[in-house]
């Protein structure tokens, strides 16, 4: 059988509803829960959007055999008993997979806020133009690209090719020195200049000088 248990808690005129939907059968069930409170559902949100399955009236989803799914939402209304009812339960032949909810369970590729260096653009201040010439910026990006190739080389052939592009091992020291100067010059710039400085800093630390010397 498929059943729902619910609890409520009221805080400053908002009722928080917690429910546990349990499917004790051996088949998957499609279930629709209806909010019984006298106001629209304030659905849980992820990255600013309602999580999948939620509408202003309630929740609909497929509960796997044996699954207990814990759900919760808020509502600007006083609590009633029960706050939520199952209005539809339908056995489904096969567990249909909600693609979006699968993707929602994957890891977030974004870094946490504390890991982002402060004052380096990325928040709408990209329009800020660094007071550095376009040609110079192109030259800096080209040096960064040279270093990225050196850092990315995993075989002797790749490393040799990357070294050839910069004029050989003798030029490596000078390239890394220039890159450090580039980074220092651009560091105080926001927006695009700041991004370039960050790339320069990352790639500079990634070039394995001893390994390249050993290869050459």
């Amino acid at each position, binding site marked *: 059988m498929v059943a729902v248990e619910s609890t409520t808690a009221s805080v400053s005129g908002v009722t928080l509803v917690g429910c546990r939907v349990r499917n004790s059968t051996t088949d998957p069930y499609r279930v629709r829960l209806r909010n019984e409170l006298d106001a629209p559902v304030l659905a849980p949100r992820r*990255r*600013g*959007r309602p999580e999948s399955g939620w509408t202003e009236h309630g929740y609909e989803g497929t509960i796997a055999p044996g699954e207990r799914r814990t759900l919760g939402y808020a509502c600007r209304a006083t609590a009633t008993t029960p706050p939520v009812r199952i209005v539809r339960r339908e056995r489904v032949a096969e567990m249909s*997979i909600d*693609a*979006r909810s*699968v*993707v*929602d369970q*994957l*890891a*977030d*590729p*974004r*870094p946490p*806020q504390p*890991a*982002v*260096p402060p004052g*380096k*653009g*990325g*928040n*709408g201040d*990209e329009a800020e133009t660094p007071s550095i010439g376009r040609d110079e*910026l*192109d030259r800096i*990006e080209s040096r960064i*690209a040279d270093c*990225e*190739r050196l850092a*990315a080389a*995993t075989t002797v*052939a*790749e490393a040799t*090719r*990357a070294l050839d*592009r910069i004029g050989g091992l003798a030029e490596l020291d000078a390239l890394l020195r220039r890159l450090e100067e580039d980074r220092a010059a651009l560091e105080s710039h926001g927006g*695009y200049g*700041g*991004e370039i400085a*960050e*790339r320069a800093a990352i790639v500079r630390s990634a070039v394995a000088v001893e390994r390249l010397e050993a290869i050459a």
Partner: protein
Amino acid sequence: MIVAVGGGKGGVGTSVVALNLGAALGAPVIDADLAMGDLPGGRGPDLHDVLAGRAKPIEAVRTVGSVSILPCGRSLASLRSCEPERLVETTDAVADEFGTVVIDCPSGLTADAGFALLAADAYVPVTEATPSAVAVARRERELARTLDAGIVRAVVNRVTGEPPIDAVRESLAAELVVVPESEPLAAAWDAGRPGTATAPDSTAAQRIETLAEAVVDARR
């Protein structure tokens, strides 16, 4: 048609295959590796800007050599400001404009890979013929299957010697395109160019052409 080139494991040449496939199809390539993008791009708005709502998808597509590319941003700050789920609408917008789009998927099973596969109609996993790479490709293949991205071909990349190709075919349950380790392709990649344009007669470039034909057939 939206073709996701993935495979899950870093360093197997996914981006090189994506770039060359884009060149062979005359289709733009979206660098969807949000944290470690590596397709050439030059300056201007990039995918991070698009996913943060600072630029329109088409504005961020530019021509690099003979290929149209929507490059990825490189900074942590711009990555932080992205909404990865916008990848689906972004890819759709580029496909509306260009017809066919190639997505260069990130390694690892993160949400950017998931959204790329969710957007895609067709899937091309890239792997090397090593047990660890094939195992990762199998996992991503399962995700692609769940997300309804049908496999067109699997690419066994950077092949040297005589690896156990039959075992790879069986493991991935897909027809294979075998691309040998290729100096011309690698040199072209270093210069930010597709080897299918600079060394069209190389075996590797011709195998990519074979892959492109399979994609065109699947599109029909």
